[in-house]
């Protein structure tokens, strides 16, 4: 178990190194430098600016600059935002919690929707409930997040007025604090989380269905049937348990998917998270923020994938690393 994890992490180190070089070279091509966020070019003489650039090592060879950049990045210093004139780390830290809670709620909703539907679909395969669920999952696969949001927003936010549109918390609830604050946060997150969850369930549903259908024909189920185990128990004790094992490991991949989806989702709903921050910082040409976000997302994606593998090993000891 530990051997696996250590090995996976060891493989990650060169990958993260290549990624950081790649990002650094991208960053080198981006306009602006470390002084852009601190000094107003209209009030500083160009000679002084050049002098400062030399002093801060703007003209150093790229590997020297890379070493300095990655050294700072490891310590959590990504430079200063050109636009907000604040350290990048602080700006991202302000948004990280919002994305985290929205992501958590989305993953919860995905499993709450997908597992019952997947089980029903597999249990009654090729019967009306399965057909209805399959139809839904085809639609879920074919609908981009934006399109679903465009259907849900006018219905739930404008016509019915059940959910607020945009933002992460009501200003009045913010001042009241406590339970009001929590409920308002939840209220603001429900519609975006629902949108993301509805389009991401299809794969888990189809996977569960095909697993259950496969297990129904397997030897141990035939044995259980011939012993006279009641139908209910065959499903609950023999089939579902086995079919749900791989689904547990999808959690990591779901986190990864939800994170990459956050760029679009948060922009549509004007939800102040990291994804929205990324799009706005690109639009404002605020590259230090964008760059730090990409690095952070890559680390999170890798962690999510690793988590999936580890969970799979824990729940299914038959899988041993070769």
């Amino acid at each position, binding site marked *: 178990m530990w051997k696996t994890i250590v090995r996976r992490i060891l493989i990650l180190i060169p990958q993260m190194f290549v990624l950081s070089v790649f990002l650094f070279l991208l960053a080198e091509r981006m306009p602006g430098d470390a002084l852009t966020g601190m000094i107003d070019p209209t009030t500083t003489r160009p000679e002084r600016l050049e002098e400062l650039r030399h002093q801060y090592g703007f003209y150093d060879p790229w590997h020297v600059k890379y070493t300095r950049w990655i050294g700072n990045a490891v310590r959590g210093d990504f430079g200063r935002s050109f636009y907000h004139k604040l350290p990048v780390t602080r700006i991202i830290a302000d948004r990280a919690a919002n994305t985290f809670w929205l992501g958590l709620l989305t993953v919860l909703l995905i499993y709450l929707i997908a597992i019952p539907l997947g089980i029903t679909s597999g249990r009654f395969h090729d019967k009306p409930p399965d057909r209805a669920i399959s139809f839904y999952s085809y639609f879920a696969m074919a609908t981009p997040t934006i399109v679903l949001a*465009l259907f849900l927003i006018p219905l739930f936010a404008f016509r019915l007025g059940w959910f607020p549109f945009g933002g992460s918390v009501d200003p009045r609830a913010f001042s009241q604090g406590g339970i009001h604050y929590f409920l308002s946060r939840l209220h603001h997150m429900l519609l975006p989380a629902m949108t993301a969850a509805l389009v991401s369930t299809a794969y888990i549903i189809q996977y569960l269905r095909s697993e259950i259908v496969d297990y129904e024909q397997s030897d141990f189920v035939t044995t259980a049937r011939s012993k006279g185990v009641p139908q209910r128990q065959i499903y609950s004790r023999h089939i579902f348990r086995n079919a749900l094992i791989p689904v547990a490991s999808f959690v990591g991949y779901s986190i990864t998917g939800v994170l*990459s989806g956050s760029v*679009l989702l948060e922009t549509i709903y004007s939800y102040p998270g990291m994804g929205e921050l990324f799009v706005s910082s*690109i639009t404002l040409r605020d590259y230090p923020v964008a760059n730090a976000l990409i690095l952070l997302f890559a680390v999170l994606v890798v962690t999510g994938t690793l988590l999936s593998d580890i969970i799979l090993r824990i729940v299914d000891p038959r899988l041993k690393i070769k």
Partner: protein
Amino acid sequence: MTEFSEMTQTAESGRPPSFFRICRREIWSDKFAFISLVFLVILFLYIFIAASQVDPDGVVRVNLRKINGSPEPGHLLGFDPSGRDMYTQLIVGARNSVSIAAGIAAICCIFGTLIGLFAGFFGGWVDNIVMRVVDFFSMLPILMIVIVIVSLIPSYTVITLVWVLAAFYWMFDARLTRAKTLQQSNLDYVSAAKTLGTPNWKIMFTQVLPNIASIVIVNLTLNLAGLMGVETGLTFLGFGLPFSSPSLGAHLANARTLGPLLMTRWWIWLPSALLIVIMMLCINFIGQAFKRAADARQRIG
């Protein structure tokens, strides 16, 4: 009856039915896939013929008095927020979105299949290197990196966008092809060909490739739908197609400017949204039928 005679024919000739014949049977026996196929062919023909008939100046012709104008005779779908005829925008936009998705899918399919074939067939260190590169690409936050690259390229066109996207989506095809090739190269027919002294490239392209072709085709179809979604999302965020070329994603982006008027001015975004869903749904239905045809255990027909 026809099916029966087909079966006896194949039995007599002693050859298993070809993938295309199985696909045809599979689509024929799945109502949804069949309707989707017929519908999609008609839709694509209509879109491409109608788009080629559109007067190029008409696409960008602006009528300032008709900004967000409602549908009227001669302009069945009204006007967009720039005062352009929405029906023309829809047709040309649909053609652009479909062509771009098809272009990216084709490039990814060609390169991904070739790379996967090499890695899987030769194995060993070739495979190791290729898989490490593929692993590296799959851990990237693709959407974000594509956005950064698009915003950095000074003069970028539709062609650039296609290549940038293809550069980050080929590894899914490569990984799949590699896995299938690895399975095939352990089979007897490959060893037999090797023993007979057949050159490697010949085994790869004339023997292994036809055996994995069905998987490649399935993947190509399903990718097409996925990439249409990606293009729509990118354009929606403002990092896809340039403003001068209409696309379905751009129409959805227009919807954001409407705010509470989203439902009253439905003609600006609803036709595009429905068109995307319908096209992706049809492609998925067909892709699923192909997928069943490629996997003997799941066939209906």
